[in-house]
């Protein structure tokens, strides 16, 4: 299971990368493996707000469907529209081309509530 060190992680298996107040969000390698082949995504639009506990979208594979929850608050500034045509990128490259959203953070401090790579790996082991 790939768990890049430099990223932050949510309890619900999303990863977050913060650069200059903007957070890029996707799902982890573990999540894409659990889901199976991704077939469809519902993502928000640019300008929408996202909250820490409310789903910002839905991800579907053949056999499962899951809410996407980022664990952060902010405004959507960019959406990876490539995923509408090629949702399989999420399986192939969950941390790279499989990114989903970029969000301008309302509160930079909020990211402290997310997990480090080590903490996320521990969570996976305990499950």
């Amino acid at each position, binding site marked *: 299971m790939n768990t890049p060190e430099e990223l932050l992680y949510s309890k619900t298996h999303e990863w977050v990368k913060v650069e200059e107040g903007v957070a890029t969000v996707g799902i982890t390698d573990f999540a894409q493996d659990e889901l199976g082949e991704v*077939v*469809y995504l519902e993502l928000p639009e640019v300008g929408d707000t996202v909250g820490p506990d409310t789903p910002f979208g839905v991800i*579907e*594979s*053949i*056999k*499962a*469907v899951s809410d996407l929850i980022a664990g952060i608050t902010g405004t959507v500034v960019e959406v990876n529209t490539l995923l509408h045509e090629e949702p399989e990128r999420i399986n192939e490259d969950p941390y790279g081309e499989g990114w989903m959203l970029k969000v301008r953070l309302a509160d930079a401090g909020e990211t402290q509530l997310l997990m480090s790579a080590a903490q996320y790996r521990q969570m996976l082991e305990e499950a």
Partner: protein
Amino acid sequence: MGYWPHTEDDTRQMLDRLGTGSVEDLFADIPEELRQSADLELPPGLSEMEVEARLQRLADLNLSSDRTPSFLGAGCYDHYVPAVVSSLCTRSEFVTSYTPYQPEASQGTLQVIYEFQSLLCDLTGMDVANASLYDGASALAEAAFVALSVSHSPRILVPESVHPAYRAVLDTYTHRSHIELEPVRCRSGVIDLNHLSDLAQAPFAAAVVQNPNFFGCLEECAVVSRLVHERGGRLISVFDPISLALVETPGEYDADLAVAEGQALGIGQSLGGPGLGIMTAKQDLLRRLPGRLVGATTDVNGKPGYVLTLQTREQHIRREKATSNICTNQGLCALAATVYLCALGPRGVRAVAELCLQKAHYTRRRLAELAGIELPFSAPFFKEFTVSCPAPAHQVNGRLREAGLLGGYPLRRDFDWLPNGLLLCVTEKRRRHELDALVSVLAELCT
């Protein structure tokens, strides 16, 4: 008479393996107080001969349209069922198979559904069809939910010319979800466009148009469609599948959803069930649709095959967030409809439709000549039409029965402004002498 195969020997061997002396031990986990009151007080089982005799006796107590020509329609129709339909639909590989969850073991069923979906798109001019729902009435209710899911308004405009039972089912389905069903007046036998326009001033999710409508009349669908779309609502059409061989299609008048009862397509009347709920839609509503969908794909060796697809909409995955709670489709009935449409082909369905059209027209023309009969509606019509009789409809039907005919549907219970109204249906099965007999009986009543 039971269908289990256990010999005493088998049973003993199986119990030995389980280390118990009797089958009763396997029910030890059921509390005693439940066991005590569980005896089934039903008559003893009958032999095959006795069951058949009993059901034959009960069947003989019914008036049936194989012996009595029927003029009763109102959502269930005495159309001819070709022999090839019955023959193929009794093949036990179709009858006794299950939902195609293991596609490799169910390519027959899956391909039939794919063909069914395709034929319905061709018939209706719509983009996508699902694998069927229970019946026309619940299909209308499901269509309403689809329209509501893409709207902010809880209002659905429902003309009085929509089948009263469908309106009742729609009401039952939506009652607890704070959905507002608003009736549209239809006193001339078709939608009152002014009233529709008034109601459409405020935001609404969808308007329903049934064509032909419950009275048999054809609505001004293009006009209704323009009005509804201009005001930002969706159009839900309820159609008659046989009519679409001749009548304008939901696709042509830009319906967003088009639903129907498919019983007319090779499924007998059978006291109104099982039926076949047909649902078709525009492409943009695909992911909101309830029910099963079959898609074409290829297998690991590149061979073409079919699978259930977009299953994440459905209850077994999405559970409480599913687009609907529906779990079955009307598989065998969808097969019947598919075979029917293939057996008849474009010329065959057109011929059925033309026969219905011409025969209904002839009957109404002759009734129009009778002094005591009123024809309350002047709109064009298909297969069914409304008359107002000189006597209450049930009396008229009584006289028709004496003459060996099954009369129409009395409208009074559903439409108090048509106190002597009678809805008559004429299908391709009706011969001229039967039509003339109907006219004779009514002529007598008028003198």
